[in-house]
């Protein structure tokens, strides 16, 4: 039976169809979750995709986190449901407290859209269970605020608990500890800055994102 993945849409979100496309190309079903809805219906996993929820005004994710949908996603996550935040989705997850830290403006103060190499740091997360620790993946990034920042104590905790999921091979944005993605303590909520949905088609240049979606689809 194929997994149904709910894809959150706030006004300003723009990667929802791309995420659904990637999920469906790997045999899953994608389903739009509108920001004002109060429940998730029957989904096996949730993706909060990239884009500019509420225009990224004030701070990326600052307004989106108050939506009824985010309460429902919080409940889902707290019950162990797999949740993946990609780019703007990662920002929403940190703003809503489901993941620690914050994503600041890139060190170079420029928006960055390019393909980077990241390294799989742990296999122990809903997103990387099918991947191999140490593997290098070519994934596109596309953000202005991707510079992961947290207190030193938080960083220590993340490292101690093996919660860094992906790390940049060549840090493009100034992220602490080269962090490209992290997970929560129960490892079912993952936030990453790179866009794996943009790397699922050889005609577009890379298929390295497939392994991540495979993990997510098989994680329930």
């Amino acid at each position, binding site marked *: 039976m194929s997994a149904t993945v709910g894809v959150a849409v706030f006004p300003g979100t723009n990667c929802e169809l791309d995420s659904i496309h990637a999920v469906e190309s790997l045999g899953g079903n994608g389903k739009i979750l509108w920001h004002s809805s109060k429940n998730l219906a029957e989904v096996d996993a949730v993706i909060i995709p990239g884009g500019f929820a509420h225009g990224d005004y004030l701070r990326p994710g*600052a307004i989106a986190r108050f939506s009824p949908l985010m309460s429902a996603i919080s409940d889902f996550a707290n019950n162990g449901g797999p949740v993946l935040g990609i780019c703007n989705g990662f920002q929403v997850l940190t703003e809503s407290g489901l993941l620690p*830290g*914050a994503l*600041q403006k*890139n060190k170079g103060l420029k928006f960055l859209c390019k393909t980077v190499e990241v390294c799989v740091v742990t296999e122990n997360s809903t997103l990387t269970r099918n991947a191999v620790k140490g593997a290098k993946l070519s994934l596109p990034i596309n953000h202005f605020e991707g*510079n992961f920042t947290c207190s030193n104590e938080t960083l220590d905790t993340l490292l101690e608990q093996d919660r860094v999921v992906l790390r940049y091979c060549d840090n493009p944005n100034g992220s602490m500890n080269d962090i490209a993605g992290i997970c929560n303590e129960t490892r079912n909520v993952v936030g990453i800055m790179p866009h794996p949905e943009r790397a699922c088609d050889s005609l577009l240049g890379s298929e390295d994102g497939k392994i991540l979606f495979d993990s997510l689809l098989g994680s329930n």
Partner: protein
Amino acid sequence: MRRFQESLLGTGLALGVSLLFSVFVDVSLRKGIADPAGSTIERSLPTLGFSNVRDVSVGKTIRFVIEAENEKEAHEKVETICSTFLTNPVIEEAGITIENLEQAEGN
């Protein structure tokens, strides 16, 4: 805007006259948090011919007008808005300045 004025009117009639406060929120990065915007400006200034500038930091401001029964209530409201919404406490802190608008106009 029209909607607000109506709601204001409604409140005034029902609950006694409430006051308007002008609010200035000055959001800055917490000490110790890297400030990419500040360092970029600091780096650029010498090449533009401005030397002898240092410790540049960049923040943002949010100004608005709020309605409340009295200054204390206004302060409480603004503080909640700041800590839950206008700032991200992981990296930011806020200074709040509140002024009673009617008083201000009286000057």
